[in-house]
């Protein structure tokens, strides 16, 4: 009985999903000027960064969380800090004036600085100011960070208070998560004596990436920011791994870079040292691109499947759009399930490779 009810509700929802675009399309055609669906803006608008957190639209009015814009104009310009409401609601061709400077956000379809805040100079030229706005992704980062602290610190406090007490269910969860990473990823790669030293970084990286990936899949406020699918975030993570590998690398690691065990002519003319040095950079570079590309690709595929509804609807009419929406919904469910897997796999891969590189830089040669 419950199952029948469940299927009934599910099919109702599906049919609603199928007809919703038709209705919206029908409304669109009634309007005098026909707006063409811009797939590129749609996809990159959702996967990229933005100055405001767009939640939904009600009666044509957008409902957003307006995040602060913080910029410093080029060439000795001043600092500007204002709500993104002023620049996001501008009509085309308008600019926002703040303390004598004019700003606008260039559209995603623009060739120059797409989706970014641009200053319009007095002579009409465009310049990109130094921009440390608290954007949607910055918000996403802080959300993940706060979640990490809120999730792990209470457990740590409980452990500190009474380490031998019977752990609660929540502590069990924290323990299980921590030790899956510690025993499954870190301990097999990092030498046993160094585990205590590097585990904090690797654990933080793992859970940061993992929860950022998961939050990115939740499609409503305050989640849904494409944090790990943004190169700015992965570049920081990769740099930190680079830092941990090379700064704490031991003598043997550096000797292997500058004076490896190869014939003398390969290292006297410094061919091998150069290759080895480059390889220290390519390793974190690969980490950076892998994480970024995987997560971004997943988000883009989901957005493309959504965009397909409107593209097909625009090309062949509302009916086809409705049919397409059923297909898209199923494909999106499949993709989201896959992304759930990818969320874990990418966090796992990033952490296991980081611990492998760190472990290799800590490796002591066996005495012959």
């Amino acid at each position, binding site marked *: 009985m419950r199952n029948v009810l469940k299927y009934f509700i599910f099919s109702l929802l599906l049919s609603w999903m199928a007809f919703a675009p038709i209705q919206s399309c029908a409304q669109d055609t009634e309007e005098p000027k026909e707006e063409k669906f811009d797939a590129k803006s749609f996809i990159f608008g959702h996967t990229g960064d933005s100055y405001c957190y767009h939640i939904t639209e009600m009666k044509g009015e957008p409902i957003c969380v307006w995040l602060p814009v913080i910029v410093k104009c080029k060439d000795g310009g001043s600092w500007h800090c204002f709500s993104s409401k002023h620049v996001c609601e501008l009509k085309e061709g308008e600019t926002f004036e703040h303390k004598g400077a004019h700003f606008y956000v260039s559209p995603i379809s623009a060739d120059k600085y*797409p989706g970014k805040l641009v200053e319009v100079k007095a002579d009409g030229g465009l310049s990109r100011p130094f921009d440390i706005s608290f954007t949607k992704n910055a918000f996403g*980062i802080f959300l993940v*960070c706060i979640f990490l*602290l809120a999730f792990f610190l209470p457990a740590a406090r409980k*452990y500190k208070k009474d380490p031998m007490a019977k752990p609660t269910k929540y502590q069990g969860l924290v323990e299980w998560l921590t030790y899956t990473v510690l025993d499954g990823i870190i301990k097999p790669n990092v030498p046993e004596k160094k585990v205590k030293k590097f585990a904090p970084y690797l654990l933080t990286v793992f859970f940061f990436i993992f929860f950022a990936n998961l939050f990115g899949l939740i499609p409503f406020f305050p989640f849904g920011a494409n944090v790990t699918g943004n190169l700015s975030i992965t570049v920081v993570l990769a740099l930190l791994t680079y830092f941990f590998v090379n700064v704490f690398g031991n003598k043997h690691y550096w000797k292997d870079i500058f004076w490896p065990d190869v014939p003398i002519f390969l290292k006297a003319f410094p061919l091998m040292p150069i290759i080895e040095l480059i390889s220290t950079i390519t390793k974190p570079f690969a980490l950076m691109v892998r994480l970024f590309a995987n997560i*971004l690709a997943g988000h883009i595929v989901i957005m493309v499947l959504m965009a397909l509804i409107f593209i097909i609807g625009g090309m062949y009419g509302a009916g086809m759009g409705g049919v397409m929406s059923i297909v898209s919904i199923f494909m999106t469910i499949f993709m989201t399930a896959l992304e759930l897997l990818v969320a874990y796999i990418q966090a796992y891969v990033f952490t296991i490779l980081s611990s492998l590189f760190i472990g290799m830089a800590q490796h002591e040669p066996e005495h012959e």
Partner: protein
Amino acid sequence: MDLFLPESGLVIWMLIAFLIVFAILAKVGWPMIMGAVEQRNTHISDSLMAADKANKALAGIEQKRQETMAAAQAEQIKIMKESQELKTQLIEEAKAQARQEAEKIVADARFKIEKEQAEALAQIKNEVIALSVDIAEKLLQRELSDKQAQSDYIEQLLKNNQTRIEA
């Protein structure tokens, strides 16, 4: 393409936020969790080892107890056997003694009887002698004239003596 260029502002935010979280978790997060779990691990393994040891000791004690029990039982059986033996021995001895005593009593009695018999016989002999002498005396005192009378007289004498003896 713009997508593939890191954004300086976001890099700064990320660096600040991540480093703060990392610092906090590295200071008061992970070491506490790991430390507590390690501590519990060692505690559990120690406890298990202690329990194992105690179990082994207990098994030793149990074995000793059983051994003691068995020894006590054997001792008991042995004592019972000995007492049984002692009992039969005592009975045998008592029997033998009793028999001896009885034999002695019987012999004594027999000896007494024989002695009394002999005494009686001797008395009878003396009586007979005295009687004979008596008769002979009386015979001698009377004149033996009549034969018939003599015989009757003897007869009478004998009769008298007999009554005397019987008396």
